[in-house]
C-alpha cells in the first residue's frame, strides 16, 4: 500500500487538519467532537448537517459553507460516524430553526443518525432526517437494506443547502430534500479497487481486463463483473439503468452529473460526459445543468458514476444559487 499519509490511525484526523487550515475562511473544527463546521453558522436558518464514512472527499466535509452544509460529521474511512458527533454538531450549529440530517442509506449511517436524532428530539430540538437512496444498482426491496445513497447526495446537499440559506422552514427544507431524492438516480462502476489504509490491501481484486459494474462508494463489490468495455458502452449500461428506473422521459430537463471515483483523470470524465450527452440526446432528455468531476469518491478508486436529477424550476434556481465551500463554489 502506497499512500501520502503518516500513520493509518491518523489519516482522517490529519486530513481534517489540512482542510481547515487550507480553508480557514470557510470552515473550522468542532471543539469537542469530530465535525467540520461552517465558520459562521448563521442563526436565522435551518441547520443542514450530513456525514458518513470518510474516504469520499470532497464529500461531505468539503461541502460545508455558504449555501450548502452547516456541519459535516466524518467517520473513519468508510465507517459511519458515531451518534455523539451528529448530536454535538447539531447542538452547536442549530440556530433555533431546527436541524435537517441528510443521511445516506447504509445500515450504519441510519442507526447512528437515528440515535443522534433521538437524543436531540429528547431535548426538544426540532430535527428531521431525509434518507438518500438513489443507487439503482441495488435492487430495492422491503426485505433488504434498500438502495445505497450515492451521487444524488451531492446534488441534494447543494439544492437543499441553498433553500435553507434562503430562510425556509425545517418542513420546507425537508420536503425539498425528499423531492430531490425522489427525482434522482445513480449508478457507478470501477476499473480498480481501492485500499482502506487500515486494511492495507485492496478491498477486492479486479483482473487487468475486468471492471465491476454497480459498484458502491466503499470499495464494496458491485453486482456484476465483466470485461472492460469502451466508455460509450459503459455509459450505455449505466445510463440505461438510471433512465429506465425513474423513468426519465423525452422532454425531461435534467442535471447530468458525471462523478469520478477519485483515481480517474478528469479528461476521462469528460469523455464519459460526452458519451452521456449523446446518449441522452438520442432519448430526447435535455441536459440543462451539469457537474463533472470528483465529488463523491472512493479513495483512489478508478471509475465513475452517472447521476441524473430531474429538475423543476425551483431546483434549477437553487442549483444556480451562490455556493461557497471548499469543494463547490460559484456565484461568490
Amino acid at each position, binding site marked *: 500500500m502506497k499512500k501520502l499519509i503518516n500513520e493509518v490511525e491518523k489519516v482522517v484526523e490529519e486530513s481534517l487538519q489540512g482542510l481547515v487550515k487550507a480553508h480557514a475562511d470557510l470552515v473550522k473544527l468542532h471543539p469537542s467532537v469530530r465535525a467540520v463546521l461552517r465558520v459562521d453558522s448563521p442563526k436565522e436558518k435551518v441547520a443542514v448537517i450530513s456525514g458518513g464514512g470518510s474516504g469520499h472527499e470532497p464529500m461531505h466535509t468539503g461541502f460545508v459553507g455558504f449555501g450548502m452544509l452547516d456541519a459535516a460529521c466524518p467517520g473513519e474511512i468508510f465507517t459511519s460516524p458515531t451518534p455523539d458527533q451528529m448530536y454535538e454538531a447539531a447542538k452547536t450549529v442549530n440556530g433555533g430553526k431546527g436541524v435537517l440530517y441528510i443521511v445516506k442509506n447504509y445500515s*450504519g449511517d441510519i442507526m447512528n443518525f437515528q440515535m443522534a436524532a433521538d437524543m436531540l428530539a429528547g431535548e426538544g430540538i426540532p430535527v428531521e432526517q431525509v434518507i438518500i437512496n438513489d443507487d439503482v444498482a441495488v435492487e430495492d426491496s422491503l426485505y433488504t437494506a434498500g438502495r445505497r445513497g450515492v451521487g444524488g447526495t451531492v446534488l441534494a446537499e447543494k439544492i437543499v443547502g441553498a433553500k435553507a440559506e434562503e430562510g425556509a422552514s425545517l418542513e420546507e427544507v425537508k420536503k425539498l430534500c425528499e423531492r430531490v431524492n425522489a427525482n434522482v438516480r445513480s449508478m457507478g462502476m470501477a476499473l480498480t479497487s481501492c485500499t482502506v489504509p487500515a486494511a492495507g490491501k485492496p478491498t477486492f481484486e479486479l483482473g487487468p481486463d475486468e471492471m465491476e459494474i454497480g459498484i458502491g462508494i466503499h470499495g464494496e463489490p458491485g453486482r456484476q463483473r465483466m470485461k472492460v468495455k469502451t466508455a460509450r458502452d459503459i455509459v450505455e449500461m449505466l445510463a440505461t439503468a438510471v433512465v429506465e428506473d425513474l423513468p426519465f422521459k423525452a422532454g425531461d430537463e435534467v442535471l447530468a452529473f458525471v462523478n469520478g471515483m477519485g483515481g480517474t483523470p478528469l479528461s476521462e470524465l469528460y469523455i464519459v460526459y460526452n458519451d452521456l450527452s449523446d446518449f441522452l440526446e438520442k432519448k430526447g432528455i435535455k441536459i440543462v445543468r451539469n457537474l463533472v468531476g470528483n465529488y463523491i469518491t472512493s479513495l483512489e478508486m478508478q471509475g465513475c458514476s452517472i447521476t441524473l436529477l430531474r429538475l423543476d424550476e425551483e431546483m434549477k434556481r437553487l442549483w444556480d444559487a451562490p455556493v461557497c465551500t471548499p469543494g463547490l463554489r460559484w456565484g461568490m
Partner: protein
Amino acid sequence: MDNGKLDVTKAIEAVKRIKDIVDANKEYLTELDSAIGDADHGINMSRGFTKALEKVKSNEYNDIGSVFKDVAMTLMSTVGGAAGPLYGTFFMKASMKLAAQKEADLSLLAQAFREGLQGVVALGKAQLSDKTMVDALTPAVEALESAAKDGLTLKQGLEKALAMAEKGMKDTIPMVARKGRASYLGERSAGHQDPGATSSYLILKAFYDALEG
C-alpha cells in the same frame, strides 16, 4: 472464592479477552468484510474494544451492570458503522438487566443477553437468516436459556452457547444477505461467512474463556 459466576473482575477480564481475541482476528474479520462489505469490521471492532478496555480499566466498579454500560457507551462512540450501534445496544440493554448486580449466574446472564439481542433486533430489524450477527447471537442466547432451565453452571451454559454461536456463524455462509452492506451484493453474497456473526462468536468465546479463569 470462585463461585463460577460472572463478577466485576471476570466481567472486566471478559472485556480484556474480547479485546485480545478481536485484535488477534482483526485481519480475519476485515478480510471477511472485504468479500461482502467494505473491509472495516476488524478495524472497527479492534478500535472499539481497545477503547472499551481502557475505559473499564480506568474505573472502579461495584456492579457488573456499570461495566457493561461503560462498554456500551464506548462502543457507541468509537466503533461507528453498523456494528457500533448494534453492539453498543447489545451491551446497553444487557447492562440494564445487570444494573446494581454484583454478579450474574447463568440465568441472569441469559436474561441479560436476551435483552441485548432484542435490542439488536429492534434497532437493526434483521430476522434470522438475513446473514447478520443475529444468526450467531440468537442460537447462542437460546442455548443459554435452555441450559439455565436445565440447571447447568454458567460455564457449562456458555460452552453450549459458544457451540451454537459457532454453528450459527458457519450457517451464514450459504445465506444471501438481506440486511447490512452485504445485501447490496444480492446472490453474490452467498458463499461468504458474515463478519458480524463471526465477531459475535468471538465475543462469546471471550466470555467463556474469561470464566475458564
